[in-house]
């Protein structure tokens, strides 16, 4: 479990997501996944091509995805960012997805589907 890449199409189906940006490449391979509301953690630990699950709908979550070369962002619990944030994501070609699930359930669903975790395990 937790060692494969998953297509964006499959991720959207698993999280029952609504796609918020236009012209999304659903065939994109998502390499790994991390969940955080702390953008400095995302910048420090997430890898290029990974998927971010977050409750932070501020435009800074999109800026963070841009700087860290993330694949896409899924917002939890039906949260939807404002038009300014969506426009920024559109401009930067970062797919935004809204899911009805909370962070814990969604992480569980994607982990069960085998998507590789990106955050380091610190023992």
């Amino acid at each position: 479990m937790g060692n494969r890449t998953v297509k964006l199409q499959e991720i959207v189906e698993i999280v029952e997501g609504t796609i918020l940006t236009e012209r999304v490449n659903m065939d994109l391979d998502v390499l790994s996944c991390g969940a955080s509301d702390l953008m400095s953690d995302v910048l420090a630990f997430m890898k290029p091509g990974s998927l971010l699950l977050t409750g932070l709908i501020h435009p800074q979550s999109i800026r963070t995805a841009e700087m860290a070369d993330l694949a896409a962002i899924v917002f939890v619990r039906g949260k939807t960012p404002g038009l300014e944030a969506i426009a920024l994501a559109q401009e930067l070609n970062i797919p935004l997805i809204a899911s009805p699930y909370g962070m814990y359930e969604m992480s569980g669903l994607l982990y069960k589907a085998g998507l590789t975790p990106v955050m380091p395990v610190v023992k």
Partner: protein
Amino acid sequence: MAQVPKFTKIQELIYELPIERVMKKNVVQVSPDTTMTELKEILRVNRISGAPVVEEARLVGVISIEDLIKALVEGDIQAPVRKRMTTQMITVRQDESVIEAVKKFTQYKVGRLLVVNESGGLTGILTGGDITRGLLEAISLDYHAEEISRYRAKHIFEDIVSDQTSLILRYKVKAKDFNSGGRASSKLKRALDRLGAVPEVIRRVAISSYEAEMNLIIHADEGGEIIAELQPEVMRITTIDHGPGIPDVKEAMSLGFSTAPNWIRELGFGAGMGLANIKRCADFMKLESKAGAGTQLDIVIYLRPEATDETSPQGEKPQEPA
């Protein structure tokens, strides 16, 4: 950059290219009184498979090679075009994008669309082949323009020769302007991409510059400035502000230490990780500050991964910026 999702150039063009750029102008028109026999000659001579039918400058129908074949089969070759033409006319506007034409081709299963201007006048005709040809031409034009400009940007340091060439990019950062946070770093990231830097290096520059930019927004009384100096081998990023200054630099550098207010923390920053993140990305970093004065942060990142201290023989640290 390779990991950032992108829709293809074709998809982009289908949405952006106006129909008038791909349609056939100088359309061969026929009158409704033309006979089908005459039509056969018109189609053959002009090597076309159909034509709009126009009467007194008004579009009244379309006639195609299929209509001609049916007339031949039924022995009705002497009939006027008026009798055999299709009056159901599917039109698109010349200023609409190619995607609108693609949708109509799919919806109506017709071989050609009539292109009209705002006042409904016929300005051209469009077939599937015209779209394919137009897209291919647009792609090759775009490709060349992009290639040339990328080539020029990448070779800027070879083209402009001096004993020491550097390119300086300055960005002003406004205090407390959280919504615009990252704008400067975004521009810097794009500039490095155009200049042909390695994606891994671009990412390290972007992340460290972004954290430094957020620090200016969050902490500096009057905002500050990001000065990025690019040389063929190395990038130096300096951020400068004029206060309030840091009373204890060592404490500020320790992981988890933060003086950011709560509203910043609610926005995903201010967890005392910014400087640590910068240090992780940089080959060299120096923070100088005095309470009541200003703060200067210097970051050095080597542009060629092989030039970093990890792989250089003596494990040499890069020189401190002046």
